[in-house]
Each structure stands twice: as structure tokens, then as C-alpha cells.
């Protein structure tokens, strides 16, 4: 596209000074559009993140004998599913839900939320722990979902030793890949549109 743009002007004007001016101007414009597109993408990600941030939050605190208590706080009364993927070697010891509302499959914990504002589970970490808990939630009534966020204050749990893997909750409600992709496309489309308009200007 860029070559085509210059070629048209070369054919039309044969004016090298004019061409030089356009090269500089186009590079300047492209840089501007790139910045604008990036800002738009970031803004989009922030908006998406904000929309679902804090719906399900996780905090982790140490309990007795190498165990940790994980507390999931759920905003509003929801019918939802939560999947918690625990680090390798972690063992689920106790869940605050009735037996029929959770299922453990290896290091994956499935939770059926039916109006509970809070769910607690206790895990036993391996002796040499690595990794962090990753979680996702889906609300089946409102048809929305997201990532289980770390506690809203941004500090996972100060009591837990930094070496303990379970303290490292997932980043706060990162937008899903699909939404990020959509945002990227929107940003690129906007940048392309701006570039198109810029090329026509004069």
C-alpha cells in the first residue's frame, strides 16, 4: 500500500522534493496511527477488564501444616461455574460446598455456584511447589464470564511466604483472548481507516 501510494505521486508529479515531503509526512502519519491504534487497544482492554473485574475474586491465606485456604468471593447472586486449575502436585482437601456442587479431577477443581457469595476450599501444596492457581468463571444466566481475579487490593495475601506458589493468583481479570483479539482488530481497523483518510487528504 505504501509503495503504491508513493508510486502514484511519482507518476503524477515527478517532483522529488514533493516526494520527499510525502515520505516524511507518511512516516509521521503512520507513526501517529500506530500510537493511536495502540492507545485504542489498551483502552479497549482496560474497559473490558473493568467490566468483569472483581466478579469472582480469589484470596489465599496459609492454614495449618502446608495447607492453604483459598477463598473465592462472588459478586451478586449468580448461577455460575468456576474452574480452578491448581499447580501440579496440589491436593484439594476440603470444599465449603455440598458434595454435589463440586468435582475434583486431578488438580482441576470444578465448582457449581448457585447463589453462594463465597466459596472456600483448602489445598495442600507439594513440598516443592511451582506454578499458580488459574481460574475461570461462567455465569449461565447472564451469559458472561471471565478470569478469577486476585484480591481487589492487589496484594494476594501478605501472610503467605513468597515462595508459596498458591499466593500467586492469576492477574486481575485479564480479558479473554477473543475479546483481546476483537480489540486488536478494532484498533487496526481504526488505524487503517485513519490512514485511508490521511492518504486521501490534500
Amino acid at each position, binding site marked *: 500500500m505504501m509503495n503504491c501510494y508513493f508510486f502514484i505521486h511519482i507518476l503524477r508529479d515527478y517532483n522529488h522534493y514533493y516526494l520527499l515531503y510525502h515520505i516524511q509526512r507518511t512516516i509521521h502519519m503512520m507513526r501517529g496511527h500506530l500510537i493511536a491504534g495502540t492507545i485504542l487497544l489498551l483502552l479497549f482492554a482496560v474497559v473490558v477488564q473493568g467490566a468483569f473485574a472483581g466478579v469472582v475474586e480469589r484470596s489465599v491465606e496459609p492454614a495449618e501444616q502446608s495447607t492453604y485456604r483459598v477463598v473465592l468471593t462472588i459478586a451478586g447472586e449468580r448461577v455460575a461455574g468456576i474452574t480452578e486449575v491448581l499447580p501440579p502436585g496440589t491436593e484439594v482437601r476440603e470444599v465449603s460446598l*455440598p458434595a454435589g456442587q463440586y468435582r475434583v479431577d486431578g488438580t482441576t477443581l470444578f465448582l457449581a455456584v448457585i447463589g453462594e457469595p463465597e466459596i472456600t476450599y483448602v489445598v495442600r501444596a507439594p513440598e516443592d511447589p511451582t506454578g499458580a492457581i488459574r481460574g475461570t468463571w461462567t455465569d449461565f444466566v447472564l451469559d458472561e464470564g471471565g478470569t478469577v481475579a486476585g484480591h481487589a487490593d492487589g496484594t494476594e495475601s501478605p501472610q503467605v511466604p513468597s515462595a508459596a506458589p498458591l499466593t500467586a493468583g492469576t492477574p486481575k481479570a485479564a480479558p479473554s483472548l477473543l475479546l483481546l483479539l476483537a480489540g486488536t482488530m478494532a484498533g487496526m481497523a481504526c488505524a487503517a481507516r485513519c490512514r485511508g483518510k490521511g492518504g486521501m487528504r490534500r
Partner: protein
Amino acid sequence: MPGKGGDEAMNRMVPCVIAAILVLSPLVMADAALPGDLDGNGVIAREELASSILARLSSGTTAPGTPLTDLRDAAWIYVHWGGTARTVTDSSGKSLTLTRPLRRIIVMNSETLETMRSLGVTRERIAAVDKFIAQKPEFFPEYAGHPSVGSIWAPDYEKMLAMRPDALFLYASVSRAECDEIERRVTLSRPDLPVFRIDCYRPETYLDDAARLAEIFGAEEKGARLAGFYTDALKKVDAAASSSAPPEVYFETWNDFKTVARGSGYHDKVTMAGGANIFRDNPAEYPEIDPESILARKPGVVIKLAGSGKYVFGGYSGENSTRFAEVRDALIGRAGWSSTPAVRDGRVYVLHNAIVGGPQYLIGVTYMAKWFHPDGAEDLDPESLHRTYLQEFQGLDPGLARPDRFVFPAT
């Protein structure tokens, strides 16, 4: 002009199209079983819902999952209908049982759609509307360009069935023959399709109709809030109406010298506002009357209805609102009218049908009560009522409630 042969050809074509649709989309047929009711006892229990959620979550690892649509419906039913099927009796007295939340409905009357909006039913659930709804972009901006299936007088059956609706909403009382025919023909092709007959325009049944819709859409809380809004507003109207003797009112529709009598909705609204309709005892609901008989009854207040016929101006589109004054001047200038108490006392008003004909009747009634009982109207603020209704229940710009677009004189 299409002849009888054309109609017959159309009649032959419709079943073919319907058969094709049925063959191509078997899942459209309503499922009588409650989704997520694993033991088939007619109740989605907490344990069953939990089991479905876990099966869905773990479908990638251990067990076959529950279809997402079923799970979403089961969760919705558990939350909104207490886990059971919902039986609703419509305005015509017909009981219909729903085993799924409605997600693709066709609405053929704007009053019902307006009430649905008050209850928080959004565009995503509305597969199609009638053509008149689609033609009111100021009041129904979200339905401008939305699929339309004709009108109750000229329905597009082919399109209606092709939309694969899960329910159809028609009037119960007005245009009954046309709505009966639509129901008959549609259910002939889709016997499982719930057809709700709900009016949503008659003051005496409006709140019942709204409550029915609230039940259907699991919006009881919003329904209660709407009912409270109407009840509070009408209490104030009652207080004003009983503050002084009812004035003699001549109410004229958008057809000149056509009035209303007992049995018509407008008569009820005049009465509700504390007026005495001078033609209340006429045997016809909408009688055409002799101009002399108006003068003989010496009306103390005159209300002229605008918004249809040759009086299309004002309202939400706000077009040609200057015509309000022209219409009032023409009324005052009618032969012999200068001697009537209404003209002598400056109590001739023009009222737009948008705020008296449908669910917004309480706004028009509040304006009328203020005109009929000026000394007892200190608690009546129809403009504020209108603004609140638009903003809180319709999600529209309250600035649309400009009095000069709906009534004249506006002050």
C-alpha cells in the same frame, strides 16, 4: 390489484414454506420437557442444576457435557421461575405453559412492546415486530431497521414462521378478528407455538397485563416497581379528581365531531381524571354527533385528541408542533362555540394520543386531571411524571417529554 387466484396461490405456498422450515429446523419446535430436569419430575432441583453445571465444566476432561443452551435455560428457570415450568394466563383467559425462557419472540402490538421495555426485556429477545413499531424511531429507536412481519391487518406469515419464534404476542381485545386469524393460521403450522393475547392499553387491566408479562420474563421485581409507579401517580389523580365537582367535558377524537361514550377507553380516562363526559350515555362507544348537541350540553372543558387522521403532528417525532395552536384556534372558531363555558373560560385543550392511548395513559390522565381540577392539582406534575417514565422505565431521553409536543396550551 391481486385477485382471488393470487390469494389461493399464496395459501398453497404458505404450507410448503412451513413444511420446508420444519424439515430444515427441527430444533425450533418447543421442547415440552424442562431442560436440566434430570429425573423428569417437573422440577429443576438445586442438585440437578449443580450436576448439569459440573458436567458442562468438566465435559472436556471426564464426562459428556450438558448442551450450553439447556444449561442456560435451566439456570434461568431456576432463578426466575423457581425451577418449574411457568403457566401464565393471558388477557383472553387462555393458559399457556412455558418450559423454556422466551428468547425469540414476535410482538405485534406496540403497547405490549413498550411494557416489555418497562420490564427490562431487551431487543435481543425480540426476533421481529410489526411494521408500525419499526416506523417509530423516536420512541422505539432500537427497533428502527429491526425485522418486521407486517401488521395485524396484513401479516407476513411466511416471514413470521421463518423467524423461528418461540412465542407470538397479539392483542386480546382490539382488532380481535384479525388477531384470531393470525393465531389460527400460525398455530396451524406451529401447534406448539405459544400465542399470548395481551392488550397493555386498557387502564382497568393494564397492571394485570404488565404482571403477566413480568411473570413470563421473570421480571417480577421490575413489574412491582412499574405497578408502584402507576399506583402512586393514579392516587394523586384520584385526590385531585375528588377535590371538586367534575366539569362537563366534551372529548373529541381525531375525527371531527366524533366523540366517546361509556365502554370506550377514552371515556374511562376522562372519568378517571375527574371529568363528566357529556356524551357518556350515547349507545355507541365512538358516536358521531350533531354539532348542535355539543352546544346544547354547554361543555365546561373541551379536549381534542391529536396524533392520527388529519391531526398528525407533535408527539415523539415533534413534527409540526405549531399545529397544536392552529387546531385549538379552529375549535374555538367553530360556529356558536364562543358562547360555550369552555371557550369563554379558556378551557379548550389539544392532547396528543401518545400520552393517553396506550401504556402512557397515566400521563394524559394527569394532564386532564390538572385541567379539570386546577384548584386541587398542586400535587400533579404531568411533565415530571412523563420525564420519569421515559427515563426510568423506557430508557429514553427525558427531554422527549416536552409538553409543547403533547399538549396545548402547554402551560
